[in-house]
């Protein structure tokens, strides 16, 4: 496997048109994010949601995960999200010890 790439990764990879659309979308989200934060103040949840949106588009179309076999995405994405999701268990401790409240 030194000289060729696998057909389904690159051969099928979306045309440049998709790439440009993705590029513009990601930048547009970034601009929207900044403008929103400047005008209405940064709302953490919205900012995070927009970042996740950007990231998923990039993973799917820049990194061509959408063009690979679906099982690759199923192996990588849910596992990563699950592990990161579990870390949310730490939040309740981050606020309560401030005032030494039980919860």
């Amino acid at each position, binding site marked *: *496997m*030194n000289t060729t790439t696998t057909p389904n990764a690159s051969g099928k990879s979306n045309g440049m048109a998709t790439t440009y659309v993705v590029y513009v979308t990601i930048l547009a989200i970034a601009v929207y994010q900044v403008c929103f934060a400047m005008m209405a103040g940064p709302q953490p949840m919205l900012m995070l949601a927009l970042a996740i949106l950007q990231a998923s588009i990039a993973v799917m179309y820049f990194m061509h995960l959408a063009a690979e076999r679906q099982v690759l995405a199923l192996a990588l994405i849910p*596992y*990563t999200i*699950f*592990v990161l999701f*579990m*870390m949310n*268990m*730490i939040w*309740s*401790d*981050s606020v*309560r*010890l401030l005032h030494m409240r*039980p*919860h």
Partner: protein
Amino acid sequence: MSEAAAHHGPPQGFIRKYVFSLDHKIIGLQYYGLALVAVFVGMFLSWLMRFHLVWPNAAIPGLQLLSKVGAPGGLITPEYYLSLLTMHGTLMVFFVLTNAPFAAFGNYFLPIQIGAEDMAFPRFNMMSFWTTFVAFVVLLAAFVVPDGPPISGWTAYAPLSAIGKDAGPGLDMGQNLWGISIAIFCIASLLGSLNFIATTLDLRAKGMTLMRMPLSTWAWFVTSCIALLAFAVLLPACLLLVLDRVAGTSFFVPAGLVVSDHLQPHSGGSPLLWQHLFWFFGHPEVYIAILPAMGIVSHILINSMRKPLLSHKVVIGSMMAIGFLSYMVWGHHMFLSGMNPFSALVFSFPTLMITIPATVLTLIWLGSLYGSRLQITAASLFALGFISMFVSGGVSGFFLAQPSIDIYLHATYFVVGHFHLVMGVAAIFGVFAGTYFWMPKMTGRMMNETLGKIHFWLSFVGAYCIFMPFHYLGLAGNVRRYSSFVDDFMAPLMPVHKFITIAALCTGAAQLIFLYNLIHSRFWGPPAPVNPWNATSLEWTVPSPPPWNNFGGVHPVVYHDPYQYSVEGAKEDFIMQNSPEQVKTTVRS
């Protein structure tokens, strides 16, 4: 789809062959050797601790050479006791329990069991061993720096671990070395698990479908999936700890902390954050230690029972369930840390859930043993011993998992008993089982069975003598990590401690039988045939020891499930995975 397998020809010269070798078998042996050194150092440290606990006023001649300050005249100071304890735990958990069952046996046998010539990335593989080696050297260097090894335990709890020498000896350079060593270890593990996953998925011989992989291969595979993301959390934890120590930040140190009459120049951090990050890794880590042993033991038991387990698929599913749940339970180590009590409740639920796949596995082993004609060998004895230890140690987990009961038991010898049985002894028994089973393949020489059985009985009885009384001590209120109990409410427990220490010294000495057996048989044992145990998996189709490219340049083709034992109508009572022999086999779930 590997580009790397077979990209190295037969190794030339001593350095390429035995030192910077790309051969997964040599690398496996290197890991095994490293773990062997670590386990004897770790055991020696535990002897010192046990000795000090019961004879606190007896000097250990020569110990002052190890540390003039820590053991003046051979008498261990309370602080130095903690240093020994830290090094014991760190060596054992990282360099023995992670390295031996996973990296050592996994490296040696995973490629052969799936019919590959080598790992997918031999160069990565070599790097991961040598990175581990550097981590090991950096850790041991803590013994020679002036203030000695850190005193914060293998869990390096902040703020003790995050502030400087105000808090005690070893918290200067020693703790820095600890943090750096473990960070390096994380990188080594990352390299290793990447390689294991790629190899398992991409290098299987024709016919070796995922479901036809032996259970040991499955266990190493699931373990590497856990290790991939678990060590990814320990790495930042260690980096932040080192920053707290050298860059003056305070991720893990709260404001207003006064230690040794000094107000610490820190504010804004939280010791709980360290515990969260550490145990987020720490609980998956205990399964990184035990899953490979489960796989090895299943592999060996099946061979000795000469019949497959009740269900291949359920075993694999349980191992995956354990891996999945292991990320959801870390808070059970923090019930008493000041964590939100509501979180404690939330964590105790999956903790109890994780006992379900563990119980399923145990029931499958026992159910398969029931009515089977088990061949008693040193390997199968240790496999049985593993189950015994795992169950005995696991049962105490049920108690610890309830926050209300843990209030009483936390930080007592009960916990020490729990995890030594379920993780320490069980995983080590898995390694012993693997050693007696596979050493013939690895060295080309049979080990002595009689000595092996003697070794088993001494270790088995010895381990129970050491670790069962720990539970009793814990129930009696004996706290852990104290360097002496004399003149205290714990004084009446001293006879138990004496008993344990004597048992520990004897059981430790019994390991010399193993060492003798290992070394003697390596050189003078009877030559091992290709398949001494009439086993079915691919490692038994290649010469003992296998040539550098495992299968001598041919590609094995696999026709059968991994465990075709006692097959009706077959020529022998077993069918090798690569045997083209056609028999009607009953479909098993």
